[in-house]
């Protein structure tokens, strides 16, 4: 029975789609890629060093490991860049939508009225790069969206906006 559902808002017209679509999706800060690559490269450097040492001291066969490691490292760096560039988000009238992933795509749509609280976190590296991650909590632990890699000021602003909207659109549990 056609309950006259309120006509979709104009910005709903393009619709939220898994692959993006017409909405004004916003990317996260590219520094996030750096923040994720640095620990990766550090680990890679340690592994390479170990590899070289073993190759020099024990058997030259281990030299084979070096190109393998380099290849794996290059692949990981490429992957991180792709992952980071795949994260995008948009604030709609009544919900915030976060998209992630290329191979494993996911999309979370959290209504402002369901927000319980918002966390902002940033580690030392992220702080040095001037980014922070914004974690959105609802009454259900599995529905929280996390939005990594926002410029710190923007993360704070987002939190303030979310809090304000959550207040006005609050629905019960």
């Amino acid at each position, binding site marked *: 029975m056609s309950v006259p559902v309120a006509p979709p808002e104009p910005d709903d017209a393009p619709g939220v789609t898994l692959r993006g679509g017409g909405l004004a999706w916003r990317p996260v800060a590219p520094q996030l890629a750096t923040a994720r690559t640095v620990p990766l490269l550090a680990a890679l450097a340690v592994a390479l060093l170990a590899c070289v040492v073993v190759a020099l001291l024990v058997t030259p066969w281990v030299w084979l490991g070096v190109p393998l490691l380099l290849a794996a490292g290059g692949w990981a760096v490429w992957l991180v860049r792709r992952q980071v560039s795949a994260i995008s988000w948009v604030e709609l009238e009544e919900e915030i939508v976060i998209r992630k992933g290329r191979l*494993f795509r996911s999309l979370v*749509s959290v209504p402002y009225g369901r927000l319980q609280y918002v966390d902002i976190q940033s580690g030392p590296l992220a702080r040095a790069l001037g980014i922070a991650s914004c974690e959105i909590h609802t009454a259900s*632990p599995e529905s929280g969206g996390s939005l990594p890699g926002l410029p710190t000021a923007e993360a704070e602003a987002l939190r303030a906006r979310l809090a304000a909207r959550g207040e006005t659109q609050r629905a019960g549990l």
Partner: protein
Amino acid sequence: MTQPDTEGGWQRLHPLSPLLRGGVVLLAVLGYLVSQLVDEVLGSFDAGGYVPGGDAGPQEEWAWRAYPLLALAVLVLVIAAVAGASWVSWRFSRFRVADGQVELRTGVLFRQHRQVPLERVQAVETTRPLLARAVGLSQVVVQSAGGSDSHLTLAFLGAERAERVRAHLLELAGRSDEGAPAQRLPGAAEEVEGAEPLVAVPNGRLFVATILHGSTLVLGVVLVVGGFALGVGRVGLEVLAAAPALIPVVLGLGVSRVKELLVHGNFSLARSRTSLRVRHGLTDLRVASVPLHRVQAVEVLQPLWWRPWGWWRVRVNVAGVQGEGGDDEETTLLPVGTLAEALTVLGALGAHPEDPVLHEALTGTGGESGWTGPPRVARWLDPWSWRRAGYALAAHAVYLRAGRFTRHALVVPHARVQSLALDQGPLQGRLALASVRVVSTPGPVGPQVQHLAVADAERLLARVAERARVARRRVPDPAPALTRRPEPPLAPGGAPLVD
């Protein structure tokens, strides 16, 4: 109860409470002391005796041995001290219900004052642990949304008083959240706390249903095949070598089945004006109240082996009731029942028992109009159930169904949707499929539809989001959506679907 009949409305717990709370420990300590004493008294008559050789505490050993009467005096003193401490503890434990809050003060040195606002109360239950039951006491557990840490336990009260307190709290909590006109039930003459019995599950049926479980059936088959192989096939006794490996499996299985029986035994469900009242427990009888408007999502399921009997189980997600009660206890509204009984329970939750969509969700096999399911390519990922799986949107709720063998039917009211999520793995990506999760609060019900066509999944997302938006707006604050009159009542005849 707001008037100060005992200073400021504060009330005391039952005087035996501290003893019972420390009950087991106290018994253990007493038992230890007594056995020690008896040993020593007997030992002192032993002529040779043992020489208190240890250098640790010869004095004490001596004291015990030489002066049994002194030891007795110490014991009496200890008991007196415990009694005294209990009395003081009892004096300092007080609770009250006032100003829209339940408050409990405990502790002498380390004082604790816990307050739970009534509108945050999710459920109130009375339980009777074994020791307390022996002396006819109950405890009242006031559950709030913050998980088991934020619960407030009134232990202990006389059984009758506990029931009164529970009813009072529920009434206050129910009233303070309800705000809106009380729920109107068709043709039900409700008394104030007149719990109208809905369903009772005979223990015999529960027993059969408990045995009819995938794991027990598999085990039975294994045993039969094993026995057959031994007897007829003359496989040889080396097969028996595998038997010890089975023992833990059998044990674990037995424990889980017995636990199921213990938890769901003596099950009965009653409805009062604002809540459902669940009584269950074979040995530890529990009475829990589920306020109707806290119900977030409903699932009706039927394992394959229950199908010949036409049995169903109904469970729900209730806001704030996770963790403490385990996954099963407070959230199962019908452990095993006939279709009619399941529909009665659903009716109490606000569904229309003759709602065609509901019936399609329960037993449909796929292809009904109004239902959107996975497209044909989904058979590569879900060869058995793809035809049946799917969703239907009604005016007030979204219906999901899944499982060709073990049937699942889920209902989530639009006003109860926490958030929505789409997921797509690489294989799904190739086949242009995606899964949709309609996120509810924590609980046994996890509403989702797997392997929908991407366009359908996106449409579901958009529609549910839209409806949820409208429903949230329409229902201010704690929204008894599932429970209030189903907004536009699900017309049994017409098409209750929007498309």
